[in-house]
């Protein structure tokens, strides 16, 4: 069992994902904005962060939180990050795994919304076992 934190402003999506992951035996917490998420993680770092990109007040708040964790927080810099995005990961409009970069996009893996729960569960299992490349 692992402690997972889902950070997504879409409560509907976050709660369904949490339901699925709790059924898998994980302890899942939901935060609806990145500031609260940063505070929550400072007090209790998760084993895995599932993070959305766009938030109502800042379209790139997800990136900012990821950069903060990797570059400014000693406590959180090694927490694996699974980035969820409603933006296409395959073609030029958005970004994808090839854009993962230590400075610009310091995340561990991507998952495109809408999420297939079987894929989500597989990705979470892989990331918890330290495998960031497996699908």
């Amino acid at each position: 069992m692992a402690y997972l934190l889902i950070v997504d402003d879409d409560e509907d999506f976050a709660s369904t994902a949490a339901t699925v992951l709790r059924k898998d035996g994980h302890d899942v917490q939901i935060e609806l904005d990145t500031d609260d998420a940063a505070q929550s993680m400072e007090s209790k770092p998760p084993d895995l962060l599932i993070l959305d990109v766009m938030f109502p007040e800042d379209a790139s708040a997800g990136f900012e939180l990821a950069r903060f964790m990797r570059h400014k927080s000693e406590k959180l810099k090694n927490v694996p990050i699974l980035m969820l995005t409603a933006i296409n990961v395959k073609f030029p409009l958005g970004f994808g795994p090839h854009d993962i970069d230590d400075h610009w996009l310091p995340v561990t893996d991507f998952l495109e919304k809408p999420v297939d729960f079987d894929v989500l569960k597989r990705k979470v299992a892989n990331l918890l076992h330290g495998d960031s490349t497996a699908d």
Partner: protein
Amino acid sequence: MVSHEGIQAAVYELPLSKERPEDFQIKGSKGPLPESLLVQNILWFCRFRWLVIATLVSYGTLGLFPGLTGYFRIRPPGAWPFITALVLTLSNLAFLLFARTKHSPARTMLNLWSQIVGDLVVLTVVVYFVGSLETNIAFAYLFHIVLSCVFFSRRQSLIVTVMAIGMFATCITAEYVLKLLPSMSIFAHTSHEQDSSQVLAILTLDFFLAIGIWLVVWHLASHLSSMVRQRDFELAETNRRLMAAQEERSRHMLATTHQLKAPFAAIYSNAQLLLQGYCGNIPDEALRVIQRITARCRRLTAEIQEMLQLANLSSTSQESLPRTKIVSTELLLWCMSQVDPVARERGVVFKTDIRPVAMIGTEDHFKMLFVNLLSNAVIYSHMNGQVQVSCRRGPNSEPIVTIVDNGIGIPAHKLSHIFEEHYRTKEAVQHNKESSGLGLAIVKHVAEMYSIRIRVESRLGFGTRFELTFPSSRESSGSNREGETKWLIS
């Protein structure tokens, strides 16, 4: 608003959108050219000056041969062509050195003005020696006047014109009115020695005529130059606005993607919870409804994605994306891997003969192109069918990619419509309801961007063959075989 002691009310006033100053275009059009362009022109002036220097040296050399000067009936010029050529050479080297060092707007303008003043002084010397009124040499001032109209503001070009007139007038006054300088001409004999009063009247007329022509030329050239420059600034401004609009559009599209896809993601997630039994048992009838909701969510998400891809491809900014060398084997294998899950579902197998060929383009665009063609080939194949993918070099070493399926095919009279947005044949709809009809429109856009020729051959009920010929290829020609239909786009 209820006031509370000790709590300062926060005030915010929505600022009006920044308006462009009304006189922006006029101000811009009257200004000189941008600095980078001025620096380029400084170098161009210097190159041109070498030609003048060469002409002066040639003329001076000619004067060293009395036979030649006698033949052309000109006076031996003496040393002045060499001295002016030397002065011009030294000043030209100084200008070049000055222009190639780190420049600032002030230094650039100083360089240009130094060149103009220096050139006018040297030209006046040349005009004097060649014959200020006896020859047409004075019209050489027009070069400076016209060029200053092109490169400077109207006021600055007028200053140059007045300087030219002033120097020419000084030369004439010193030569003919005050007689401070002896009258000079390159010709051995001049007519005014015979009837000085009549000639003086003609020379006076010539003088004022020359100045009048210069002023008219200045007026016309500076006016035209102002108009051209105004148009230039208008175009630059329009371009800036288009770029801003394009940027805004991209941001808007990104936000739209998120706004449209996020609710579907939530609906899809909830439907999955029900389907996968996280909320307890559900009657079969209800399950079928949920399955339809899930399928519809997937389809809508895919459609949104395709619409965005198409809109994105239509934007001009896409043409400026970096183009790289792409190897056909890697590209096609990646595209097939994207389509593989659907192929496996349908029992469709790929048969490949892909030779490594380099293509130049934006990788994502080519991926869009081939993923759409391959997924069509798989989707419109019959169950357990076969899709052949080949890549080879054509007769001119151009890459040719062929994708052949043995699927449902396309009726002959519908082939010309298949690249239209949202067009789907009745046969395609019956075979697969999950398509948006945008896949081939995306293919068409990419083909147009890269001048890729696409030949489609199809036999209804037997399959379709897409042949893509990349640029530098000769247009292949061939007659239709009986029972087959071909369609070509380029």
